[in-house]
């Protein structure tokens, strides 16, 4: 089974997933059109840039063994004591393997120094690092207000290790239907600018660069997430980064599943007789496809795929937080039940995980299967449930469920979901509700 991805999610994945491979991806979009069209903005940008320059840093992750940088990003000072905000994904390798790397900053004057990791927000892709300071240093003020749609914003950062730049752009509200909010910023954000601040005309931080979809569509973490992280840090610095991440992942899945359980599951018809649940929450979006145009197909297939268009970056080889649901109805045309079931079996024998994860992060999947009929007796299924446990974050699992109807000679209904980073109770509660919601009409 394939997971369809929206274009936005795909490029976001590329950006985050491949940053590791340093200077990759994305055609550098010339900013000249922006700048020449609006000389006032250019002047203002320059003024802002000069004003903020002392508080901006390039953040480098240095591989200790080779002594060379293995990842670059941007960061900015948020208090006078040396606390710097950046993206979690910039320093993720350090957070997971602190012995292998060290974090370094490079300021506008070319000074270098070591940074220590203080706190992370893995859900919103934020991190706080600290430089040692002898005296008070200039820092950026975090905005108290949210911008209005169309407001001019300035994104700062160091793309592709080319030097610190400023990119003017427009605030376009929050990304539509997102579970974890992101600002939609119309402006060119490139690799290496991750973790850089986005400021309004008053030079107050309103967001943090995080991802792009290309073509001047950028995504920012809203400043209030940073404010929350900073305040929590001031009250109680985390015991250990790993534990903090585990707590955040656990809390995030609780929030997600609570939203799903508390929403209405609408009954929808799929194909001629299938009845499937559509979870009515804005952040789960559905797509459909069928093969009605293929006249030579022996089986008429209709597919509905609903998924959460975001996932959480843990490392370049480990993503979590995704949720994919797929339904498929099949109707045999002119073939026997025996042949239909042979082809049907081929269709369901290849389900894969919904998220990327490797040997260091998760165990191998373990599965069990049974013939299951819900109490309403509206369908008889062969149901398979597979789970794999997270190695670093206790009590979190990836689950995969696949169910195939076996009660009609020439019709089939397949229901399938994968959820990444969920605890046992929520996984089982979701599975139960899902199993009871799929049936024949």
């Amino acid at each position: 089974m394939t997971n369809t991805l929206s274009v936005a999610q795909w490029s976001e994945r590329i950006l985050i997933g491949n940053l590791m491979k340093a200077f990759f991806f994305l055609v550098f979009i010339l900013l000249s059109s922006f700048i020449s069209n609006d000389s006032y903005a250019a002047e203002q940008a320059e003024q802002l840039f000069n004003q903020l320059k002392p508080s901006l840093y390039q953040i480098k992750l240095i591989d200790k063994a080779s002594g060379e940088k293995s990842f670059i990003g941007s960061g900015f000072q948020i208090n006078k004591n040396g606390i710097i905000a950046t993206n979690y994904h910039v320093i993720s390798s350090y957070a997971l393997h602190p012995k292998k790397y060290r974090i370094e900053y490079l300021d506008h004057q070319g000074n270098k120094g070591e940074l220590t990791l203080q706190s992370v927000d893995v859900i919103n892709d934020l991190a706080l690092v600290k430089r040692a300071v002898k005296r008070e240093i200039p820092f950026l003020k975090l905005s108290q207000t949210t911008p209005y749609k169309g407001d001019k914003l300035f994104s700062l950062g160091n793309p592709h290790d080319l030097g610190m730049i400023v990119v003017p752009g427009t605030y376009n509200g929050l990304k539509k239907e997102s579970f974890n909010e992101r600002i939609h910023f119309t402006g060119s954000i490139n690799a290496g600018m991750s973790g850089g601040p986005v400021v309004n005309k008053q030079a107050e931080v309103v967001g943090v660069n995080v991802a792009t979809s290309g073509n001047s569509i950028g995504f920012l973490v809203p400043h209030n997430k940073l404010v929350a992280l900073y305040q929590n840090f001031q009250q109680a610095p985390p015991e250990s980064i790993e534990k903090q991440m585990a707590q955040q992942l656990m809390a995030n899945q609780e929030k997600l599943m609570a939203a799903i359980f508390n929403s209405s599951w609408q009954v929808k018809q799929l194909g001629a007789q299938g009845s499937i649940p559509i979870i009515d929450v804005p952040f789960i979006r559905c797509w459909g496809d069928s093969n009605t145009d293929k006249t030579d197909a022996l089986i008429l297939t209709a597919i509905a795929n609903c998924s959460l268009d975001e996932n959480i970056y843990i490392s370049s080889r480990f993503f979590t937080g995704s949720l994919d649901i797929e339904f498929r109805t099949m109707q045999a045309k002119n073939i026997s039940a025996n042949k239909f079931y042979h082809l049907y079996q081929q269709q369901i024998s290849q389900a894969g995980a919904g998220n990327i994860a490797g040997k260091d992060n998760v165990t191998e999947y373990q599965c069990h299967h049974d013939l299951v009929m819900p109490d309403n007796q509206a369908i008889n299924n062969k149901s398979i449930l597979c789970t794999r446990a997270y190695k670093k974050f206790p009590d979190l699992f990836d689950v995969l469920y696949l169910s195939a109807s076996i009660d009609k000679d020439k019709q089939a209904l397949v229901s399938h979901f994968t959820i990444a980073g969920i605890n046992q109770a929520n996984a089982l509660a979701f599975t139960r509700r899902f199993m009871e919601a799929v049936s024949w009409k």
Partner: protein
Amino acid sequence: MEINKTEINKTEIEDMASATEKPLTKEIIIEEVSRNYKLLHRYKLSQQQIHIGRDYQNDIILSDPHICPSHASIEFRAGHWQLIDHQTVNGSFVENPTQKKHDAHQHIVKDGDIISLGKSQLRIFFNDHKVLPTLAFSPFESFVDLMRNPITLFLSIALFVFITGNVFYLNQPIEVNFSQLFVPTISMALGFALWPASVALISYLNKYDSRIMAQLGVSFVFFNLMWLSSVLESIVSFNSASNAILPLLVMLPSVALAFCLFWLNGYIGFQMTATRRAIVAAAITTLLFGGSYLVNYSKKPEFNPRPQYNATIMMPSLLLTSSNSVDNFIKDSEKLFEQTKKEVLK
């Protein structure tokens, strides 16, 4: 011709003890045997002196170039047969399987002795040599006869072709016509025919009867039975939950079938003792199943990001068991989570 080693030893001892008082016997059987004691020629002679050599005046003419024209003779003297080597280039030796090789000149020949001349070997028996008891036809013989009957053979191959064609047809996601099925089906049948053919070839090379029809007949019957057992396996695995033991037990018939096939192949193609045949059949079966397990095991990646599950589904008419409830499925799933959690600690 099978040599029973213990038999030889026994006769040897008897011979030594009773060499002198034994009734005079002049009849002697000389067998020309191959290196692994397969019979090539047999001579029964009743004269006092037997000449052995390469030229045509000999009683036993051997064409081996390492043998002298007049190589040796066996003479009946004072109640014994004695071998005389005629000062040959390569000599004559007594080479009994259980004894050390020694010079055969003036050797008193005993029943069952093996004499090597050049690169040839002769085995000598007296006419009072004890032979093995008569072997009754085993019930397999009539089964094999039935299987190699041209009509049965044709029917079993036809059935095999039909089943193979059907399997190809069932797994094709697009419409197929007869000719598209024909080629893979026939090549599959030919591929499977290679096994009985090679067994027949090996037995032919070992100077046994090739009996190719019997090999083909028996093999195809078993191939068909294996199809049947794989269908049974699918039905059982379709009808049972993941923790059931039955699917494992259903593996057994296919192992047993493979063993029986190899046993019968040996029975038809080679003459060997029952234990040896059982060992050979068991060895090939182990090689087949163990080998395929090893191949799978070696291909297994260090970490598999994809779940491995049993997705066997069949048409509703083959559904024989009643389904479980969602409650029980969820309960079983709890165990699954516990199991995965344990994996982390490994």
